[in-house]
């Protein structure tokens, strides 16, 4: 039955529906893979009982003809989503042992749609990182290896590194991710899978441990575009408990999926051709452009002049919001409490010293600094103005084109430890992902090719607000023409 774990979400759903196999068989297959794949460190909590219960419910539902959109599909849940009664730590010691008494809206929707949970997926601590090395549970290891014989363990990207690795290694057919500044797209690109960050507000943030509220968006990571559409449909929707949630109907993205993009105008932003990135990135991008042209799209060179300021803007706004969002981890109501003789302030300082890892502390410090007395205007307010300019760039360009095509990341996966000592080098990973995050736009990464060492590279499609359909369709067109079928050899 091991081949069941090679099936896409759509195929599993359809197979369960038409009785080709049972949901329980699927769940058992993935549970076995999860156990076999423990060396990847993708899961921090395994919940086979949850997956099996959902599978049994699906098999039951089939007999009563009551199947739901994701009946029979077991998935992985990023540990940033609060799951009732199941440890939720955001990859941090700070929340060691924390069992929420509530279920995040997004995970609730997935369970309501019939999905089961295989476990909680490892991630960078509080979603701050681009390599999954900041997790309190240790780094996730990518299932990919370089073809030069070097066996250096590779980073799966981050912060949704566990999700990426698990999907790529068939430890689940799809997983949730969250994307604040590339945390779905960059890891998807690193492991050769697809991932979409929808328009800001599509997925409720309620019950998702907050990193940077104005940027955080949940989204799916799966093996292909169709699976992303299926999952995103289940995850999206208005939530009155999230004031920034979009009060709009959720389109039937899967039903309207079409790779026919004839006549679509696709913008190629010249500012994304930056110095110092591997020549292969440019090559894969050019191939992607040709494939879109081949699919009947019109290619238009466009300019997004404030692109170079996106990353520094992001590294003011995201840490500022994070410094405030993470103030609640104070050892009073849940999570870790540090010990100190220094009274209440001593307790706070010990708790936050012991509970947070160094990257989280670094960002809290930056955020605290840029908001502190005398610096607010120079940093935070300036950044919000530049952010408005970045959004305006996109707005203007979207008067001319329907979509924008760029590389997802400036490199292929790097080895663990390669960049972890240089925060700035690490931040640069998100240089192509961050602009769309700042503007709240739907953006997707699809695998587009391999580099010289046999590692996957991804391309990013950015769409107008609310136009997930356009992004998915173009992604499908790219996917079909790229014919990307590479997968890592199971060495684990």
């Amino acid at each position: 039955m091991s081949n069941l774990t090679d099936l896409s979400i759509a195929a599993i759903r359809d197979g369960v529906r038409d009785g080709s196999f049972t949901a329980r068989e699927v769940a058992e297959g993935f549970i076995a893979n999860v156990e076999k794949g423990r060396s990847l460190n993708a899961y921090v909590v395994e919940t086979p009982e949850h997956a099996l219960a959902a599978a049994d419910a699906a098999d039951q539902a089939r007999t009563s003809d009551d199947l739901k959109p994701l009946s029979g599909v077991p998935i992985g849940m990023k540990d940033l989503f609060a799951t009732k009664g199941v440890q939720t730590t955001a990859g941090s010691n700070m929340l060691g042992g924390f069992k929420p008494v509530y279920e995040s809206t997004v995970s609730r929707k997935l369970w309501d749609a019939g999905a089961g949970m295989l476990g909680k997926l490892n991630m960078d601590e509080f979603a701050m990182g681009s390599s999954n090395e900041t997790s309190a549970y240790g780094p996730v290891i990518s299932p990919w290896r370089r073809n030069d014989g070097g066996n250096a363990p590779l980073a799966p990207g981050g912060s949704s590194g566990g999700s990426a690795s698990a999907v790529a290694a068939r430890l689940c057919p799809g997983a949730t991710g969250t994307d604040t500044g590339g945390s779905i797209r960059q890891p998807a690109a690193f492991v050769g899978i697809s991932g979409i960050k929808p328009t800001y507000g599509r997925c409720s943030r309620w019950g998702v441990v907050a990193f940077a509220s104005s940027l955080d968006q949940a989204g799916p990571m799966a093996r292909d575009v169709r699976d992303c559409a299926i999952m995103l449909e289940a995850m999206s929707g208005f939530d009155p408990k999230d004031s920034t949630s979009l009060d709009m109907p959720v389109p039937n993205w899967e039903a309207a999926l079409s790779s026919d993009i004839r006549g679509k105008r696709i913008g190629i932003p010249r500012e994304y051709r930056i110095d110092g990135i591997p020549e292969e990135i440019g090559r894969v991008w050019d191939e992607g452009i040709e494939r879109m042209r081949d699919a009947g799209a019109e290619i238009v060179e466009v300019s997004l002049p404030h692109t170079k300021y996106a990353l520094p803007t992001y590294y003011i706004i995201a840490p500022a919001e994070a410094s405030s969002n993470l103030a609640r981890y104070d050892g009073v109501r849940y999570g870790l409490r540090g010990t100190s003789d220094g009274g209440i302030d001593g307790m706070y300082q010990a708790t936050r010293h012991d509970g947070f890892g160094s990257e989280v502390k670094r960002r809290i410090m930056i955020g605290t600094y840029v908001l502190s007395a005398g610096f607010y205007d120079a940093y935070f307010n300036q950044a919000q103005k530049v952010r408005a300019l970045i959004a305006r760039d996109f707005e203007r360009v979207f008067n001319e084109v329907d979509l924008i095509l760029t590389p997802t990341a400036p490199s292929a996966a790097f080895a663990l430890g390669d960049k972890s000592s240089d925060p700035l080098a690490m931040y640069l990973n998100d240089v192509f992902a961050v602009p769309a995050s700042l503007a709240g736009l739907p953006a997707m990464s699809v695998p587009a090719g391999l580099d010289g060492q046999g590692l996957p590279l991804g391309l990013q499609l950015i769409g107008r607000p609310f136009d997930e359909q356009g992004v998915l369709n173009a992604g499908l067109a790219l996917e079909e023409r790229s014919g990307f079928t590479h997968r890592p050899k199971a060495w684990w």
Partner: protein
Amino acid sequence: MSVDAATVRHIAKLARIAVSDEEVAALEPELNNILGWIEQLQEVDVTGVQPMTAVIPNTLRMRQDVVNDGGIRDDVLANAPVAEHGFFAVPKVIE
């Protein structure tokens, strides 16, 4: 703009994060490196630009004044490091 060790300590204090001398020594250049890089934003002409207030055009919806939550003390206290007599307990605060 650059930060010195005293500033690092001050920020850490504002953020309620204990820092050892070694940590301060490590953070100082790191923060300066990052802040120096962020500094390039100053060159952007933002004359007449309003800071962004909503990422995607949206209007604030308000809740009706209905009591539909609370009364869940056990849930609220379930994960508390120390809870006694229905309260959270913290090291004594001297006012």
